[in-house]
């Protein structure tokens, strides 16, 4: 839990308590904003509802701006943040499989549990499928391992690849985000409305 536990401000045992509280808050927000309905996610693909895109794009933009302001004010050190390593081909193929799963099931793993919690049968079926997928992946891991570990590009970010100032990148990224919102609204206005 961020700077509190490593600095000894609160004991380590609080990790789980805080994780549960954050998880409950996250689930509540997901359900309250309607993400527990599979039509919400499917709406992005059919073009009648872009809330998912807007929410996740906005959260990414807001958090990156906030992090860089904190870094500017010396409250945190961006270079100390952990960057997930990039496995290029594994990420592309995994992303495609996950995208098909999103489209077919109408849930992402998080929202499926959210939907199951309010008793949606399709969400429960989705979770069963998800578990089977995990099992198959685990059993086939020996065959998948070369792909899983290949094309490791290390802890890279877009700023490293494009070699531009992160501040400019954030500004461009923000404008792209807003452009995509405008575009998605335009698409939505062209598509037949779905009420659910």
């Amino acid at each position, binding site marked *: 839990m961020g700077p509190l536990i490593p600095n000894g401000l609160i004991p380590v045992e609080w990790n789980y308590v805080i994780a549960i509280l954050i998880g409950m808050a996250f689930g509540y927000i997901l359900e309250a904003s309607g993400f527990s309905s599979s039509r919400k996610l499917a709406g992005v693909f059919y073009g009648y509802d872009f809330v998912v895109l807007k929410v996740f794009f906005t959260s990414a933009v807001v958090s990156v*701006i906030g992090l860089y*302001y904190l870094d500017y004010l010396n409250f945190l050190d961006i270079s100390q943040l952990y960057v997930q390593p990039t496995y290029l081909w594994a990420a592309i193929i995994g992303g495609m499989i996950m995208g098909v799963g999103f489209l077919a099931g109408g849930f992402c793993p998080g929202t499926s549990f959210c939907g199951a919690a309010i008793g949606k049968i399709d969400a429960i079926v989705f979770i069963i499928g998800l578990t089977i997928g995990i099992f198959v992946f685990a059993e086939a891991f020996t065959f998948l391992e070369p792909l899983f570990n290949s094309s490791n590009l290390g802890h890279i970010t877009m700023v490293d690849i494009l070699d531009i100032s992160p*501040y400019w990148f*954030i*500004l461009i990224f923000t404008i792209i985000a*807003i452009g995509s*919102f405008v575009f998605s609204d335009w698409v939505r206005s062209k598509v037949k409305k779905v009420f659910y």
Partner: protein
Amino acid sequence: MSKRYKTKKFIVKREYQILAFILVFIAAGLVLLPKYKKNEGIMPELFVKNAISSERYISTDQLADKIINQDPSVLLIDMRSEKEFNEFSLPNAINIPLKNLLDDDYIGYIDQDIYDVILFSNDSFYADQAWMLGNRLGFKNLYVLKGGLNEWFNTIINPKYPDETMPREAFKLYDFRKAAGIYFGVGAPKTEKKAAPTKKVITVKKKKKRAAEGGC
């Protein structure tokens, strides 16, 4: 319509435009803010705390003890120039002149956390400077030999005999230093070579045989 109603209507109607504008404005703020050079390495507060701590020093006695016990975790680094290093130094020391401290060839010796790096020079002056550079960059396990080689000479090589009124510890320390000095090859007690006692040669003159004289 009142003016207040108009503003409200404007805000409600253009809600998303206003929010989008705020977002772009804040992002542009990052680009437009004046840039300043960030501190490299550890925070200044921590640096000062480290600098005034006496734990960054190691005394000559402690070092002598470590060397004699062949402590494998010690890495001695001589900060003096190469010429001075070639004249004399501590056993197994590595020479990194102060001006080359952060060179690529040498930085591996001080930027690591396996050994306890002990920096020394003639006094603690160069070593202190090197310590400050290293500590500021966040290198771990750096120590300075307090007093440097001069102190080493005064304590280990040429210890002073304590006064009669000094406590027993002072004598113990003296004994340790004397013994350490012997380990490092100086001040071995002079064994006076006693000349083998010369045997006095008593020459016994043999009496000449007298020619037998006629007896009775």
